[in-house]
């Protein structure tokens, strides 16, 4: 790993990181407020049959319990977009974007092996995602404290929730970096990674809302982010292991492809 390259990545992303952390903390603060303010009324509404019951389980989250509200926050498109800033945006532009801009020429003229470059960027994106998820946990704590439901939150399980989030988003980031080292242009790297994220997300949400499609959920990486279960004290270890294996495969692919690639002169 190169400390200098890591420092460069940090400096180039720190403003964006601050904005994303503040945004996700604010969003996570908001969810306990929604649960405390509207949870009972929403449950009454659902029980009355006006709204189909399937809509109470959006991606494994709901607003009838604090755990459900927090889980809803993790799979809501707002969180997905905020975390994708680094897991998709940073990773795909890290190599393919630099290659397209021509700056990879200057970087690889230094005494750095391609493994070093890759592993440094992987470490950087894992730190960024870890900080964003930590900001989400802090927001959850603040929101729960503000509306007086802290006693309903199993604070000791937040680190496991953070780890679950890290495995999901770390895996997506590893896929993004694998795409990034495989293409000379940003667009295909971004397109492939976005396609994996969107299809995976779609399968999970579709399966959660439509019982007949529930079998599709197992093919979605998002299915293995089980925030409500984790906060309830149940950890899906095979699911976590699956995320780790997929992430490991993406890393192995990138480490095999990048050093062996021919990098022709940028056009």
């Amino acid at each position: 790993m190169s400390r200098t390259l890591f420092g460069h990545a940090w400096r180039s992303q720190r403003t964006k990181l601050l904005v994303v952390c503040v945004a996700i903390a604010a969003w996570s603060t908001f969810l306990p407020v929604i649960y405390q303010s509207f949870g009972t009324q929403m449950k009454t509404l659902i029980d009355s049959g006006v709204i189909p019951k399937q809509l109470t389980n959006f991606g494994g989250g709901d607003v009838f319990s604090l755990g459900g509200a927090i889980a809803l926050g993790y799979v809501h498109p707002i969180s997905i977009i905020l975390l994708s800033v680094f897991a998709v945006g940073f990773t795909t532009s890290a190599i393919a974007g630099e290659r397209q801009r021509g700056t990879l020429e200057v970087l690889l003229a230094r005494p750095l092996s391609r493994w070093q470059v890759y592993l440094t960027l992987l470490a950087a994106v894992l730190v960024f995602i870890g900080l964003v998820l930590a900001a989400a946990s802090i927001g959850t704590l603040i929101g729960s404290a503000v509306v007086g439901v802290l006693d309903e939150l199993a604070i000791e399980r937040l680190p496991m929730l953070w780890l679950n989030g890290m495995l999901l988003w770390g895996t997506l980031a590893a896929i993004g970096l694998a795409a990034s080292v495989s293409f000379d242009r940003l667009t295909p790297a971004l397109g492939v990674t976005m396609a994996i994220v969107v299809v995976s997300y779609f399968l999970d949400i579709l399966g959660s809302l439509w019982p007949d499609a529930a079998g599709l959920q197992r093919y979605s990486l998002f299915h293995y982010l089980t925030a409500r279960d984790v906060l309830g004290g149940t950890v899906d270890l095979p699911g976590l292991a699956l995320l780790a294996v997929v992430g490991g495969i993406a890393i192995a692919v990138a480490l095999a492809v990048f050093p062996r690639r021919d990098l022709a002169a940028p056009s």
Partner: protein
Amino acid sequence: MDALVTTSLTKHYGHREMPVHRPGHRPAGTVRALEDLSIVVHEGEIFGFLGPNGAGKSTTIRLLLGYLHPTAGSASVLGLDIVRDSVEIRRRVGYLPGGIALYDSLSGERLLDYLGELTGRPSIRRAELLDRLELSSRTLRRPVRDYSRGMRQKIGIVQALQHDPELAVLDEPTEGLDPLMQRAFYGILDDLRAAGRTIFFSSHILSEVERVCDRVAIVRRGRLVALEDVARLLERRKRNVELRVDGDPPRLEAVPGVSGVRILPDGRIDCQLDGDVGPFLAAIAGHRVTDLTIEPAHLEEAFLELYEDAEPDGDDGTSAPEPVVSAPAPPTPAVLP
């Protein structure tokens, strides 16, 4: 020690660039970007690497620095193998890519710091280079995105040379520089040569190559077509001669080295002169010469002649000519008072 040695260095691509190098794999429709390149660059010399677009210059440089993997052959830089020791090579080499792209959001100063830190060697030449290329500290505080093309090129030169590399690989280094800065850059090269550094220099500007290089290699369609001392190359060039005499014109047709003799209607005599001028001077000695012009040989003419001499070849580069490779040039004899 030789600074750079390539032995039958070869690079083939598929029609669509292969994403991953697979040794020995020859897909259908292979393009031979570089074929059997064997050159030696001596320590302390400025070596010009010439050729038209697509000749294989960039491919060679990219092979030497580890961006590409050779299909066949081998090469060493500063005694290090280009495949096995690529990282160590890049620690000891400075590289200026052609049409360099820089990190636009950084200031010039921060960019040079960053690249210097990545190199891991102290930037001992930076202050001198900035001074000679007239890059002020005020300029360096501005973001690179505000720089003109010439200023970017100067930053590119500084980043390649600031750590005083043993070998500098410079691809079109004066691109975008004004004539004054070009002159300043040539001065830098002269100093580097005096300090025993080696320069591998790719350029399209033949007068520049003539001005700074000790030897040149010319590649065409991936093959070496010439490897010569610049002085020798110039010496080989036919000179254009024009003279005017009072009285009968001298009989030049049979003089060794003289060709293309033409007597023009106004009495002037045109011819080409190759090699030693002694026989020519002896042939005109008995005549009353009223005017004599011998045009100096330029590398451009030698370069173009080499191209004209080369057999036309197909895209697969299968019928390229044998390279012209010269022995070290003997001392040039003084021929004229």
